[in-house]
């Protein structure tokens, strides 16, 4: 695993997340490009590297993101772990399946994040699922599918099994 290469890609994507992604906000919902990257790494490099990458990237997001330290680290590492439950062959040139995988991972990530963040604030699970988790996951998966459609080569690894 080329740590330097992946680290530099992460820095680039995180700068995009901070500067460009806020321009894509729709009714307070914005996609999570880091999550797409975490899921991609989990599929490409395996579960262990995916989990560790998710933890490290989430931790950096926590320190730069004004929130609870450790929350993104927890949710992204767990999501990277769960992502590997999908077979690798589900990706590749099949954009719909890629979108479904990203949607499921996004739902898990956003549900966990908002559940822990709003713990004790009296927010119902239904509100968390339908007002934040599902819309954000849908938006993230759409962005992921768009990226895969524009850069199909990034999923070439899925066919070489």
């Amino acid at each position: 695993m080329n740590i330097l290469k992946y680290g530099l890609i992460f820095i680039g994507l995180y700068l995009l997340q901070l500067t460009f992604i806020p321009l894509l906000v729709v009714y307070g919902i914005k996609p999570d490009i880091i999550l797409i990257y975490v899921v991609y790494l989990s599929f490409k490099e395996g579960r262990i590297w995916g989990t560790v990458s998710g933890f490290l990237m989430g931790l950096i997001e926590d320190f730069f993101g004004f929130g609870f330290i450790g929350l993104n680290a927890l949710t992204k590492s767990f999501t990277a772990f769960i992502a590997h439950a999908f077979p690798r062959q589900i990706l590749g040139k099949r954009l719909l399946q890629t979108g479904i995988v990203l949607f499921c991972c996004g739902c898990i990530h956003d549900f966990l994040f908002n559940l822990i963040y709003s713990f004790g604030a009296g927010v119902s699970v239904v509100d968390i699922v339908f007002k934040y988790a599902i819309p954000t996951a849908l938006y993230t998966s759409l962005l992921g599918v768009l990226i895969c459609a524009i850069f199909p080569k990034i999923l070439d690894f899925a066919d070489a099994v």
Partner: protein
Amino acid sequence: MRKLKFFPYAFREYLVLVVVISLSVGMLNLNSNSQIRWLQSCVLSIFGTFQQVVCWFSEYSDLRKENEQLRQENIRLAYENSMLKKAYLENIRLRRMLKLQQKSKYKLLPASVIGRNYKGFSHAVLLDIGRQNQVKKDLPVICSSGVVGKLAFVGEKFSVVQLIDDINFRISGLVQRSRVVGVVKPGPGNECYLDYVPIHSDVRTGDLVVTSGYSKIFPKGLEIGVVTEVHNPENALFEKIKLQLSANLGKIEEVFIVLQNQ
């Protein structure tokens, strides 16, 4: 023996997961630890500097300066106007009670919003002032329209404001007309509610809600929002009151930190 050695290897993925989750949960529990806060303060300094550079490139410097001066003047005048309106209403109330009180004024420190973080229920903004400007944690933050939030984290040069529409934010509110007290709390989906108001209390659509002064953080009389809906559910103890926040949190660029009462 070989099976014993094989055991951790077979479950290495789960072991890694357990380790990272334990580390994450440990860090979540140690959020108020001084070393973590120091580390966050250092990171905030780097991030704040980067955000400032990004902000600078997005505007022409001369126009920005003139714009800033005019904006501060506008904010000051709008705030003064809003204070005069409140003073007028209060004067009427006090005259009715045949008493006169001194209206308190606040010492304000202006600050610029240089970054925003909206992720799920977490809503915060980054300001370009910090400990070097004599600000500290939990100071109230307002704009010309009303309450914006409070300082959640203060670094050396930059600070993080927890916005009033963050899901974990609570503030004691007072209906200006009828003096009914409640707790303002945000709901999911950018809504705000005035909670814990007993059923059949005198609250109407259009009523102005201000800070009650019962909190150690927010002084009395700062505008929070306007009542937009009032429901009296059957068999309930409290009314369901929806608010429209006065401050347009998505567009604020200049805010004031309330340093003290004078």
